[in-house]
């Protein structure tokens, strides 16, 4: 009597039905794309896009402490160089003139580079940042050649400034 009741009861059928549904749901979840994202309690974290953590550049003393020291040494060296060029003339001391010209261009290049890093960082400007950096390098090269030509074929930077100032 009780066994027939059990057989006729809908409980095992309901249990089997529930088990079948659960396995279907498990399969659906396994095939879904949610597994691509890293699971963290509270929900998956999608990668990519503006909410990712900032990546840091690899540590390098050439771009770090050596760059800093070189920048300050160059700036400090410009003080006696400019003073010496001011009291002498370019025609008498062409080497001094050339060194001053090169130092000024190097100082300017470092300054421009700092502006690019501050205002057009490649992290935020993936095309314009590197493009401006390369344009600056080209301009520095052209300016160096130009200053060399001017100091060689003409009167030189300090002499020009002196003559224009007193023209």
């Amino acid at each position, binding site marked *: 009597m009780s066994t027939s009741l059990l057989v006729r009861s809908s409980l095992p059928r309901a249990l089997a039905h529930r088990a079948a549904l659960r396995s279907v749901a498990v399969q659906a979840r396994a095939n879904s794309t949610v597994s691509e994202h890293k699971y963290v309690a509270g929900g998956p974290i999608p990668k990519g896009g503006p909410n990712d953590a900032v990546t840091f550049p690899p540590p390098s003393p050439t771009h770090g402490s050596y760059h800093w020291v070189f920048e300050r040494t160059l700036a400090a060296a410009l003080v006696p160089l400019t003073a010496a060029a001011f009291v002498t003339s370019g025609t008498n001391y062409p080497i001094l003139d050339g060194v001053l010209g090169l130092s000024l261009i190097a100082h300017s290049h470092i300054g421009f580079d700092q502006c690019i890093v501050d205002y057009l960082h490649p992290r935020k400007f993936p095309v314009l940042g590197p493009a401006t950096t390369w344009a600056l390098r080209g301009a520095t090269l*052209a300016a160096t050649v130009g200053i060399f*030509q001017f100091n060689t074929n003409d009167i030189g930077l300090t002499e020009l400034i002196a*003559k*224009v100032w007193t*023209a």
Partner: protein
Amino acid sequence: MLSHKALGLSTALRQAAFAPRTLRNNALLRNTIARRSVQTKTIPAGPAADAILNQQRIKRPSSPHFTIYQPQLTWIGSIANRVTGVGLSVLLYGFSIAYLVAPGTFDSTHVIEVVRDLPEAVKYAGKFILAAPFSFHAINGLRHLAWDTGHFLTVKGAYVTGYLVLGATAVSSVALTLIK
């Protein structure tokens, strides 16, 4: 319940909730679904959703920060150092590249001739316009080098050296302009 509140259906729901039971289902359905239903569409996280989000972010206004910061000697001096440096460097690069490209027009004789033929007032103004940024950048550069060696790294130190730089710049600009 939360989504209905976000759509502004709380009053309708409250009325439907406190209505007599016989009318409750009809009132609920009528007030929430028929009157103020909103169609929503789910976009999965990815480039499509990011594109819409970025469009919204571009149109979003940002709080004033740079436009409301009180002008102070510290940051005005700092940006002035950068602006004067960039200006002088643009002049240097400009002349060097111009000479490289066209040495005939930019050689020293032409440049000196053009400057000599300018009126005296323009010559003095031009000399001042060149001397002032050069003086400020050079003297403020000394202030930066002092900071780099660890001196005057206090608010008082920054202000004292800042005013010294301004005074020295004024004296030096006038002195350089008056060189004949």
